[in-house]
């Protein structure tokens, strides 16, 4: 009994330790964002005993083009995620409910495209984008991020759809539902938690993607990633302001995550089968 309790305490401690270690950079950035630039680089570092200030946020919002970048981020992440779902839902449907002998191979092949380092295709894509006039365009970046996230979304939705009993979809087919009606009125509501978490994942990935956004966007299409990066370059390194900019760019994703949370955890009470 005693050893059991001790074990549990150890596990709890480990869990807390791990969570803290994971969250530490974020918490540190949060603290730094309220410091002055001098205190931000002070050594030994100060934890809570410093002059709390909102000046960094004021500066970031005043001289950086935060709202421009925010809108770009929303458009790029939202647009690419919508495109990903529009393609991944039908793809996952066909693999989950009409599999062929090659389905497994296709799944693996799709995932294998994620093993290619983006920088390996940077030059050709850059040249294509230059010729097609897609450089520094939100559409161009959204398209590229959608292509990059498609395999993950198709894979996630595939495993999610396989949990939905095929007989329910067959029942809809017998009832005369078109393929579109079958997907929209039967499959989507049943797979909603999975679709929501897939959307959230690809949205977050697109939101935080910085290789393509930094290299393909210069002024018009720059999202928050480029906005943050701007604080670490031309005028020198401003830790406090950089932290404030980072925190400001996290907030929208946190908000969406929090809004989706209900969907993510709700899950549907299945009562159709047995």
């Amino acid at each position, binding site marked *: 009994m005693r050893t059991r309790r001790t074990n549990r305490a150890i596990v709890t401690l480990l869990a807390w330790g791990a969570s803290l270690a994971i969250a530490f950079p974020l918490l540190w950035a949060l603290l730094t964002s309220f410091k002055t630039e001098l205190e931000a680089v002070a050594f030994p570092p100060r934890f809570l005993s410093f002059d709390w200030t909102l000046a960094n946020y004021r500066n970031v919002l005043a001289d950086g083009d935060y709202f421009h970048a925010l809108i770009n981020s929303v458009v790029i992440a939202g647009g690419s995620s919508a495109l990903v779902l529009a393609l991944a839902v039908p793809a996952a449907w066909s693999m989950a409910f009409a599999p062929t002998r090659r389905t497994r191979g296709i799944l693996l092949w799709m995932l294998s495209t994620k093993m290619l380092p983006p920088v390996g295709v940077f030059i050709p894509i850059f040249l294509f984008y230059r010729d097609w006039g897609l450089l520094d365009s939100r559409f161009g970046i959204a398209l590229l991020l959608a292509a990059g996230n498609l395999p993950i979304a198709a894979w996630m939705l595939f495993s999610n759809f396989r949990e939905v*009993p095929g*007989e*329910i979809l*067959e*029942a*809809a*087919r*017998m*009832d*005369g*539902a*078109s393929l579109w*009606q079958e997907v929209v*009125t*039967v499959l989507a*509501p*049943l797979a909603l938690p999975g679709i929501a978490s897939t959307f959230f994942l690809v949205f977050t990935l697109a939101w935080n993607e910085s290789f393509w956004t930094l290299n393909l966007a210069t002024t018009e299409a720059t999202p928050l990633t480029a906005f943050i990066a701007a604080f670490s370059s031309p005028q020198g390194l401003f830790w406090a302001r950089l932290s404030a900019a980072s925190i400001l760019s996290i907030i929208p994703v946190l908000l969406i995550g929090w809004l989706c949370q209900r969907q993510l955890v709700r899950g*549907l*009470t*299945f*009562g*159709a*089968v*047995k």
Partner: protein
Amino acid sequence: MSGIVLEGVTKRFGDHLAADTIDLAIPDGGFTVFVGPSGCGKTTLLRLIAGLEDIDSGRLLIDGMDMARTSPAARGLAMVFQSYALYPHMSVRANLGFALKVARRPGAEIAERVEQVAAMLNLAPYLDRRPAALSGGQRQRVAIGRALVREPRAFLFDEPLSNLDAELRAQMRFEIRRLQQQLGITAVYVTHDQAEAMTMADQIVVFRDGRVEQTGAPLDIYRHPANRFVAGFIGSPRMNFLGGAIADDYGCAAIGVRPEHLMLDPAGALAATVQTVEHLGSESLIHLRAQSGEDLIARGTQDPDVRPDDIVRLRFAPNAVHRFDADDRAMPATDARQEVI
């Protein structure tokens, strides 16, 4: 010709022949039961009729029209699935009305049809519930109601009662049959339970390994099984088979005697050892082992005077004997033969 007709229907899954050139007529307005052990192709054939699987070759005529390439919905058939396959995110009302809604029927008509069907199946009090809040029997009735709403040409049932307990199963068996007779709609019903087949069917189709073994009315099949497989599959407890010297007396490879025709009689020629006695209340089943080694079952009275390890003698009337040749095919009956044992 009305009803459903299959001509040379074949379906393969890879190397597995799930339906092997099946010719079958399902009469209009009748209750046809597909029965056979699991994996015999009966469910595949039902899904081929429904259009949920594509036919490799052969013709499928529904009311005289070849519908082998028609979409499931356009065939005008309704299916009740083994798992019920209700839409879990919709109320009973929406489940029942779904087919009419996708067919864009007017709202008033949908409401009327749903009420009508709900009244027929005693579902009226549950119309606003979700499937999760219903009992197994109620879910089953919703599944049937969903098929009923569409006024289909035929009902297809895929082992619809296998998830219910014994009592409910017997009740639903009766209800489904009554409903089908009342509406006069053709029904095709798949089951592995020969008792369900016997009690419900106008016509039984016995399957094995993707082939039809025999087609006929329940009692015809019971009395005149076409081969040893059908003889053993239809009837419970199953038919007793004896080979060796007794079969030689009858001029065949094996004989079959149903448990009700095997009687305890001190003067009988067949000796056997009692294994156990199962008391069923109104009768009993005596499990025996013949001296030649075969396991046998005899139907006994309520309380037969035998104990395990007793050696008893058995008698059976020659006209109750089924004869089978070396290929397990049934041979003509032996009415003219004198009692030999």
